[in-house]
C-alpha cells in the first residue's frame, strides 16, 4: 500500500514537470553574457518596486515601443531568475513564450503550430522552436530594417566574360 502510494506521489510530482509545463524544447535563451543567473547579484539586494528610470545598473535597457511598462511587469521581484505572469505565477526564462502570449495570444497560438516564427531543422518529426526573444528583443521588440542582398543581374547584363564579341546591346 505504502509502495503504491509512493509511486503515485512520484508520478504526480513527475507530472508537475511533464511536457505540459515544458512543452517546447527551445535553445538556450539569448542572455547577454554573464547576466544570468540574476540572483547572483540580486540575492540579498533590496527590491525597489517603484516604477522609475534605472540609474545604477541596466540603465542601457530602455523599453521602446512595448507599452508603458517597466522591469517588474515581467521580471519577478521575488525570484529574479524567473519571469512572472500577470496572476503572479512564476515561469522560467525557457518558458518566456507564455509571458508574451498573455497579450499576444493569437501569435502564441500560431507559434505553437509552427506558423509564427523562424523555422529551422525538420519539417518531419519534432519541430524545433525558437523563443520569442530569440528574434524579438523584449525590451525593444520591433525589427530593425536590414540591408538587402544585391538585386539580381539584369538580362542585358548577363554576358559571357570571355569574348567581347558576345556583348548584347
Amino acid at each position, binding site marked *: 500500500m505504502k509502495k503504491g502510494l509512493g509511486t503515485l506521489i512520484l508520478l504526480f510530482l513527475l507530472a508537475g514537470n511533464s511536457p505540459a509545463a515544458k512543452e517546447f524544447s527551445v535553445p538556450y535563451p539569448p542572455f547577454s553574457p554573464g547576466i544570468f543567473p540574476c540572483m547572483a547579484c540580486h540575492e540579498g539586494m533590496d527590491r525597489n518596486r517603484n516604477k522609475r528610470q534605472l540609474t545604477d545598473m541596466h540603465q542601457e535597457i530602455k523599453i521602446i515601443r512595448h507599452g508603458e511598462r517597466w522591469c517588474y511587469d515581467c521580471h519577478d521581484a521575488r525570484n529574479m531568475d524567473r519571469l512572472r505572469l500577470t496572476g503572479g505565477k512564476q515561469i522560467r526564462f525557457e518558458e518566456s513564450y507564455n509571458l508574451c502570449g498573455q497579450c499576444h495570444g493569437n501569435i502564441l497560438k*500560431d507559434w505553437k*503550430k*509552427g*506558423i*509564427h*516564427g*523562424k*523555422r*529551422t*531543422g*525538420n*519539417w*518531419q*518529426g519534432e*519541430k524545433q522552436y525558437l523563443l520569442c526573444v530569440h*528574434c524579438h528583443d523584449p525590451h525593444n521588440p520591433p*525589427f530593425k*530594417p*536590414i*540591408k*538587402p*542582398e*544585391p*538585386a*539580381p*543581374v*539584369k538580362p542585358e*547584363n*548577363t*554576358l*559571357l*566574360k570571355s569574348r567581347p564579341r558576345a556583348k548584347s546591346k
Partner: protein
Amino acid sequence: MKEESDIDLSRRKLVKTLLAGGAATLLPLSQAYGAAGTIDWAAFFQKRFQELTPQEVGRLIKRLEEKYKIKYGRDIKVKTTPSLDNVEFAYALNLSKCIGCRRCVYSCAQENNLSRKPHQIHYIRVLRFQSGPIDFEKAEHYYDPREVPEPGYFYVPVQCQHCRKAPCVKVCPIKATWTERDGTVVVDYDWCIGCRYCMAACPYKGRNFNWAEPRLPPEEINTNTHYLGNRPRMKNVVEKCTFCVHRSREGRYPTCVEACPVGARKFGNLLDINSEVRQIIETKRVFRLKEDLNTDSRFFYFFHS
C-alpha cells in the same frame, strides 16, 4: 574557246572553297564538342532517369561523381533519394512578414550550386509592390535600397510553384521534366535537350536556363547533392527550384525556409494535419498567384501580421 577552261577554273575554285570552308567549319565545331577521344559515350547513350534500373543508377552515380571530382576537384556526393511515402509537399509564404531582404535568394544560390555572376541564376525572384494590389506590370525586380523593408511597399518572392497541373510538365516533348510522388517537379538534366518549351509554358518564371557553362567556383560548391536537384549542372539545359530535394527528402526544410530571418516561409507535408502548412491553409486566408490559370500550385501566399 575560253569556256572549257573557264568552267574548269570555276570548278576548281568551288572545290577549293569547299575544302577551305570545311576546315574552317569543323575547327570550331570540334572545339565545341572536344576531340573525338574525349566524347563521353556513356553520357551520350544514357537513358531517361526514370527508366534506369537500380544497377544502372548505381553506375551512373559512380560515373557522375568521378566526373565531378575531375572537373571540380571536390568529392561531390550525388544522392538519388526517392520520394517519401505519404508526403505531399506544400509551401506557404507570409506576405505580411517578408521584408524583401533576399536572404532566401542567396542561400538558395549557395545551397543549390547556382551559376554565379555574370550569367547568374536565381531560382527565387523577389518582387516589390507598392502598397495596394498585386499588379505584375508595376512590380520592381531590381530594387536596391539601403535598408528593407521600405515604407509603403511590400514584397512577394516568387519561385517554381510545383503546380499539381504543371504546364511545364505537359509541354515537355520528351518528358524530361515530371512531377514526383511527393509533388516536387523535377528535371533530368541529362535528358533535357534545351528546347525551352517548358520556360515558355511556365506562368511564374519558375524555370531558368543555363545559357552558358555555369560559373561555379569549386571552393563554394555544396557537395551534398541529389541527382534531380542541386548537383552541378551543365550549359544549355533547364533547371529550377526542387524544394531542395536533397534536404526535403530527408525530412529537412529547404534552405530558403531556414534562411528567412523573419519566419515568413513555411514548408511541410500537406497530408500531416499538424504541419504548419496544413494549419495555415486550414486557418488562414490563403491565395495563389494567377489562380485563374488553374495550375493548382502548391505555393500558398497569405497575409497575417
